[in-house]
């Protein structure tokens, strides 16, 4: 029982991070109806940025977070202004392929620049430290990642719901035309969505590098997880994606433990992400609007 609760707690921490990753994807989807396949690659580049900032300048990876965030924002803006804008003229199939191409391009650019090695940070204030609460042991890095993800999520949530610009963004995602009649510039809102998408995922990358290997193809796994979160929470729903992230995090952690307990090989840790893929499939087929979704 203890092992299950432990997995549950770990899952919640991971889930907070997943929610942050999926948040950007969902904001972009909500505003533009575009699924950004390159989202995982943004995460990967955020990870590399934090990795090299902390390695070359010698600052703690936590202080590299703003750099990752900035990289993410710039990456999002550059993608939008230099590429995505041109995709909007074409059919939906071209948009899908376009972001797919962007994903491959960034992935292999990273492979070209940084090689295929798995890299992990060895030094840092939090790295390697852990503390225990009762029978449960927490890694400091994971706890920090969970808490900071939660804060970042809350900031974005506040921005979207309480500020004028954030409300304009939401208005655009509800109804593009009506919003533009009210004087909201669609183009600006699109760019803002990409900036938020890139920025949040950049922060997530900066947090993830504290305890996870970075390599050029790391993005695929996380983008698939983000897709599952978005599908589960509902395409376009900010609140939904938060709870969906938590749920996916818990699922991914508890599931292998559950398999261990009943001694089944087919429920082993190899399959923890298979469950995420299956979950996506089942959710979109049987409840396409997700748990909290309003876009169909």
């Amino acid at each position: 029982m203890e092992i299950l609760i432990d997995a549950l707690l770990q899952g919640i921490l991971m889930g907070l991070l997943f929610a942050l990753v999926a948040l950007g994807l969902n904001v972009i989807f909500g505003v533009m109806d575009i699924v950004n396949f390159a989202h995982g690659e943004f995460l990967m580049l955020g990870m590399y940025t934090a990795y090299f900032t902390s390695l070359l300048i010698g600052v703690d990876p936590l202080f590299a977070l703003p750099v990752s965030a900035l990289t993410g924002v710039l990456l999002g803006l550059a993608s939008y202004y230099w590429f995505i804008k041109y995709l909007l003229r074409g059919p939906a199939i071209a948009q899908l392929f376009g972001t797919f191409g962007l994903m491959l391009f960034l992935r292999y650019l990273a492979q070209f620049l940084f090689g295929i090695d798995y890299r992990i940070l060895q030094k840092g204030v939090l790295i390697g430290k852990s503390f225990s609460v009762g029978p449960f042991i927490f890694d400091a890095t994971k706890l920090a990642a969970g808490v900071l993800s939660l804060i970042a999520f809350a900031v974005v949530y506040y921005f979207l719901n309480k500020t004028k610009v954030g409300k304009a963004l939401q208005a655009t995602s509800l109804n593009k035309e009506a919003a533009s009649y009210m004087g909201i510039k669609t183009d600006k809102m699109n760019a803002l969505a990409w900036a938020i998408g890139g920025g949040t995922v950049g922060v997530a990358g900066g947090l993830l590098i504290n305890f996870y290997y970075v390599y050029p193809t790391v993005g695929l796994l996380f983008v698939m997880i983000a897709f599952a979160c978005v599908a589960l929470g509902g395409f376009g729903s900010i609140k939904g994606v938060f709870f969906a992230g938590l749920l996916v995090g818990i699922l991914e952690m508890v599931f292998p433990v559950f398999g261990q307990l009943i001694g089944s090989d087919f429920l082993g840790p190899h399959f923890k992400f298979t469950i995420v893929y299956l979950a996506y499939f089942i959710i979109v087929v049987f409840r396409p609007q997700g748990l909290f979704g309003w876009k169909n």
Partner: protein
Amino acid sequence: MEKLKDALDFSDFSRAEQIGLIIFSIFLLVFPWLGSGSFVKAVMIQFLLFSLFGMGWNTIGGYGGQVELGKAQYVGIGAYTVALLMVWLNIPFWISMPIGVLIAVGYSFIIGYPLFRLKGHYFAIATICTSLVLQDIFTNWKLVGAAKGIELPIHEHPDFLYMQFKSDNYYYYFIMVLFYCTLFYMNWFRKSKLGYQLRMIKDDEEAAESLGIDIRWCKIKTYSIASAFVAVGGGFMAVYNLYIDPASVMDLDLSIKIALMAMLGGAGSLWGPIIGAAFLVPLDRFLGSWLGGHKGLIGVDFMIYAALIMVVSAYQPRGIWGIIEQFRGKGK
């Protein structure tokens, strides 16, 4: 009989296209006698194989407009069926290949039924999901060789039943025949009732539905037939390479390549996938072998690939064939 005539009838194409097809066919027929090296021959076999895959993708992806990114599943099913039956039960290729096709078609019906409730992005991601699940299972399933894959037994003497030949020419002609079967099927398909229905669905799903077309059934049927062709290609891959593993026959990269070739050449046109494969396969192989020698340049070939997709999807979503048609004044 009527269908066969339709499949062989290319008369609605322009004169230039017909002449192009004839020249291309003659070239394919005499190619092995042109005295090219084994590397070039291997590239040609790869080209025909990927044209076949691309045409399979083109049915549902091109004519139907449903972005499918899971074709590798069917390559994998075809390849694994042939390989496993040969290793376990010593069953010849000519029996195991049709079994593989049957399994692929059955599987495509099972996943196609829920899949085609979805559209657009949802569909594309779901196809990735199903193929990743299948790959995960095969990568961890010890019975089928797990991540190590399977080696096919090598026979001492050439054996037609097991598709083992000393010369690549036999493989070449075999895949060429398959290629033409697929081409003729596609030629029939685009003129068939199913083909027209599918294009109508692509243009306007609601209008198609109001005309009484069973949209989902239409898509599933097309999808399953296409997966049969892809599975045959997969079976060929197993006997040709004599070694398969999940990373080589089920990987997402393979699905991407297939879709990419069709898209780059021109989705929704008969020649598109062939042009795409003729362009990308040599690029891939020559770049790969050239860059392989330079250690620092890993992945540059894929970067060029990706840049191509980005440019094509931003400027001419109808691919190379779209550009050609534009020049001829037939495009929009």
